[in-house]
C-alpha cells in the first residue's frame, strides 16, 4: 500500500480496532456480522479490558469468530455458549466473559441454556444476532423467521398454524429476575449502529460492575439467504423486522440505570 501523507491539521477519528485481528472475514459482502464484530472490538478497546476478556464463539455463520477477535476465545457446542461462559466466569471471576450467538444457536438449539444462564444471573454478556433465518446451513426457517417469510424450508412463507410464532428473545429474557440489562437494537443504519455500540458498552459495564446478566439482541440481515442486495436487505429489515421486533430496553434494573446515567 502506498504511503499517504496526512495533513498536519487532521486528526484520526476512525481507526482499525486493536481488538480485531488483521484477518479478513469469511462473511458475505454486506453481512452485518462484520459491523457487530467491530462494535464489540471498539467497546473492549474503550474499556481497556482486552487482555482479560474471553469470548465464546457459537455454531452458525459466526463459528469462526475466534479468528477475528484479537483476544482469548473458546468454541462451544451448538447452543451451549452460555453454559460454557458460566463455567469460565465462575472459575475466573476476574475475566470479562461474553458469548456471541446467532438465532439458530441462541433461540433454537440453545434456548434452555440462555434462559437458565440469564435466570441464574450469571455475570456474563451475550450478544445475540437475530437475522430471522439460518444463514450457514442455507437459509432455512429459524424460530425468529417472520410470519409469511419465505425460506428454503418454508417455500410458501412461514405458516404460524404449523410452524408457530417467532420468538421474542429480548422480551422473554427481560422478564427473568437474574437479568440486569436486556435490550434490542439494530445495525440497519448509522444512528442504529451508534445506539447499538452504546448498548453493547453498557452491557459490558453491567458485567464489570457485577450487576447481573446482560444481553444485547441485534437485528441484523442475511442478504444472501434473503436473496437481496446488501442495501435492499437493510431496507427490508427496517420495514419488516423492526415492526415485528420492537427496539428498546426490555429490562434495565435501577443499578444499571444509575450506571448509565452516571457515565
Amino acid at each position, binding site marked *: 500500500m502506498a504511503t499517504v501523507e496526512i495533513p498536519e*491539521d*487532521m*486528526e484520526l477519528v476512525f*481507526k*482499525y480496532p486493536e481488538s*480485531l485481528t488483521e484477518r479478513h472475514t469469511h462473511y458475505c459482502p*454486506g453481512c452485518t456480522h462484520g459491523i457487530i464484530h*467491530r462494535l464489540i472490538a471498539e467497546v473492549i478497546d474503550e474499556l481497556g479490558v482486552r487482555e482479560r476478556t474471553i469470548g465464546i464463539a457459537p455454531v452458525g455463520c459466526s463459528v469462526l469468530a475466534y479468528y477475528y477477535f484479537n483476544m482469548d476465545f473458546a468454541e462451544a457446542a451448538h447452543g451451549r455458549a452460555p453454559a460454557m461462559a458460566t463455567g469460565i466466569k465462575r472459575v475466573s471471576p476476574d475475566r470479562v466473559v461474553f458469548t456471541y450467538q446467532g438465532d439458530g444457536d441462541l433461540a433454537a438449539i440453545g434456548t434452555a441454556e440462555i434462559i437458565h444462564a440469564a435466570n441464574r444471573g450469571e455475570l456474563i454478556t451475550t450478544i445475540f444476532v437475530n437475522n430471522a433465518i439460518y444463514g450457514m446451513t442455507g437459509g432455512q426457517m429459524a424460530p425468529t423467521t417472520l410470519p409469511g417469510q419465505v425460506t428454503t424450508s418454508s417455500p410458501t412463507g412461514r405458516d404460524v398454524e404449523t410452524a408457530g410464532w417467532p420468538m421474542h428473545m429480548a422480551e422473554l429474557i427481560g422478564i427473568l429476575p437474574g437479568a440486569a440489562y436486556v435490550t434490542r437494537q439494530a445495525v440497519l443504519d448509522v444512528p442504529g449502529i451508534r445506539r447499538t455500540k452504546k448498548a453493547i458498552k453498557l452491557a459490558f459495564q453491567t458485567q464489570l460492575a457485577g450487576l447481573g446478566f446482560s444481553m444485547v439482541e441485534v437485528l441484523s440481515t442475511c442478504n444472501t439467504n434473503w436473496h437481496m442486495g446488501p*442495501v435492499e436487505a437493510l431496507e427490508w429489515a427496517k420495514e419488516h423486522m423492526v415492526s415485528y421486533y420492537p427496539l428498546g430496553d426490555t429490562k434495565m434494573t435501577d443499578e444499571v440505570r444509575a450506571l448509565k446515567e452516571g457515565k
Partner: protein
Amino acid sequence: MAKGMVIIDEDRCKGCGLCVNVCPVHILRLAEGRFNAKGYRPVEVTDPEACTGCAMCATICPDVVFTVYRQRRRPKQAAVAA
C-alpha cells in the same frame, strides 16, 4: 482544502456498497473495470476535496475498510484575535 480524508484498505473491501449508500456528500463509488485481490470492485473516492470526515462510511462498513481523518476544530479564540 478538504475537511476530511479517508484511507481505503482496498483488499479488505467486498464491494457491498453500504458505504456508497450512506455517504452524505456522494463521493464514494465502486470501481469500474478494476478489481481487488479478492475479485471485488473496491470502493473509491471520486472527489477527495468534498470529504467532510464524518466517518459514516466507516461506521456502516462491515469489513473495516476505512480509516478516517478529520480537520481539527480551530479554537474560537484564535478567530477573535485575528
